[in-house]
């Protein structure tokens, strides 16, 4: 059984990770939408960047975020010995 301090430190790590993930989540969707008029001036292979972020870019980042969170938490679980058998 873990001590109270260890449990608190586990939760702190989880919370910080959650905040980081949500910050990026916010920036690629809401942030990008707010400056999409400006981003649209950059055109790559026919795709205006502002439109592209909303249509595909943000979505791919979302997926990467979930994978990143799941992988990192797996390691954190192991570090504190709270992983499942």
């Amino acid at each position, binding site marked *: 059984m873990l001590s109270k301090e260890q449990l608190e430190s586990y939760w702190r790590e989880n919370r910080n990770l959650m905040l980081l993930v949500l910050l990026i989540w916010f920036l690629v969707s809401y942030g990008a939408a707010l400056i999409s008029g400006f981003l649209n001036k950059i055109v790559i292979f*026919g795709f205006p960047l502002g439109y592209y972020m909303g249509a595909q870019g943000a979505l*791919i980042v979302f*997926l990467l975020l979930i*994978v990143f969170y799941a992988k990192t938490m797996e390691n954190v679980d192991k570090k504190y010995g*709270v992983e499942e058998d």
Partner: protein
Amino acid sequence: MVDKGFAERLKKVYAIYTGGLIFLLILLYLGEKLFNLSPAFIGYVFLFGTIAVYAAIGIISRTGQVAEYYVAGRRVPAVFNGMATAADWMSAASFIGMAGALALQGYNGLAFIMGWTGGYVLLGVLIAPYLRKFGAYTIPDFLDARYGGKLPRFVGIVATLIVSFTYLVAQITGVGIIASRLLGLPFEVGVFVGLMGILVCSFLGGMKAVTWTQVAQYIVLIIAYLIPVTVLSFKYTGNPISQISYGFALQGIEQRFAQLKDDPKEIEVREIHKKRAEELKAKIAALPESWEQGKKELEQQLNALPPGDPKRAEIEKKLKEYPKSPAEAKEKWTDAMKKATEASKPPKSYTAPPSDTKGMVNFLALMLMLMLGTAGLPHVIMRFYTTPTVREARTSAGWALFFILLLYITAPAYAAFGRYEMLNLVGKAFNELPDWVQKWAKVNLITIKDLNGDGIVQFAEIAIHPDMVVLATPEIAGLPYVIAGFVAAGGLAAALSTADGLLITISNAISHDLYYKMINPNLSPSTRVKIGKALLLVVALIGAYVASFRLAIIVELVAWAFSLAAASLFPALVLGIWDKRMNKQGAIAGMVVGLTVTIIYLYLSRFKGVELFGIKPIASGIFGMPLNFIVALVVSRLTPPPPQNIQEFVDNIRYPKGAVRAGAEE
């Protein structure tokens, strides 16, 4: 525990199934080419063939066990749970309507694309792993255990039922429309054929059967979605990967729009629309007299014609379609006026974001509501109870989003191609329009009228229904009918899988949460499952009955479900996990305030024309959601902290290892 052998067997079964599906497609293609199979025959093969497969899975997975019935025995591996969640989540609207909405709305439509995917980040990080650790059957179960008592459970049940039932009716409507389009059956018959397809798997095997059927349905829908657009992309560019090739279409659309903006013929047609809008406005202002007058005029015209005159049929049809009451006239004419006003404006840039602040505020608010609503939808959250471990619940959110993205990052390509093809019609003579235009004009999915009488198509003369984009792509790409039929089967799979998930959620909320947990806790496990099954049948029949009225408001209700879920369930779940100090009083006050404020704004904005900060009814939760959080936090701090055992419960769900009091398996 993760059962490796089980996952391997599943992979094999679904690989054989996918192979069989492709074999069937090839067989039907050869049949169409060599034996001239009729479209109706191919339609029947797809409809009954796919439903037979779903039924077979339902029969194989039949069960009477509680854990299997409610959470598929908690042994669904992450990949398969991801596929099932994707099918559960993607409805007929995602499959058929979304690409079209995007084609018509341009950048504004992206709120749906980002909104319906961004919610999975919230689910995977804030909610799913902890609910899985808790390990009960439903959301009300969680609210009860976390906040203690019947009242939180009851509020959870009410929110679940409101959100899920409106959604279910829309899915059954979708099934009816697709079945009637595919086979030419009357809508009501289509509804009941679809209903059999829904019930045959959920009734026999509950969540277990639904899960394995949803995996099969996902495979059908994703293949059906990808084939037409891939071929079309190859035709345009020589690059089959539509997801990266559609940039040229975006450029083409923008150039064409810039040309059409000042085209004198276009301006002429826009003026006609403008005049029409003004006429309608005058008619609406003169209600109810204008309604009576219009009716009288039609009747007089009819009476003036001798019996047997061919023109009589035309006027009789007009009379039949004429609004039945002044109230209906107001609704219909306002709608027509809005459309005419819209058509009288020059085309807006396809890729530019909303240029005014109000438009941007509504865009962002809608996106937030869709994300939070997605993370709070009971039928989606339920799916994360079925994974074997907390770790798998986390990865499962990733797999779910991966399988959803296959469709969602393809939708913008469909949309751009659809819009591009529409613009290609502009400047053509009316007598040289392609066949697909004639075909879909018959069922009113595309309307082209020579308003200024010059014999040439103007952009402002084309009006398309959003469903048109996905449905017509096979023909635009020059594919055989088999593929068009298969796309319809894909749409059917999308609607059926979502309906199944919703049906299970609703019947569980009533049988497990309301009846077993609140009214009669002395039921034996087998009786509980039987009651669940009986309710399933009743709910499905009520859903079909409501769907048969084809109320126009149903489509709107679905969008509202997101605002309602975002303003009620989402805060209660997140605070229950992340805020240990949150207590019963705070959560209930928050949910009640959030739900009430949202419903009031919905009502005022939809029916009374109230508009604050440019927020449309579809994003109405933007006021109730933050209020829910604020009220919950304030009330909880003013009332005593939750008891010791609840605080321990919160600790328990935060760590993957260790027992949770309330989550014991039966």
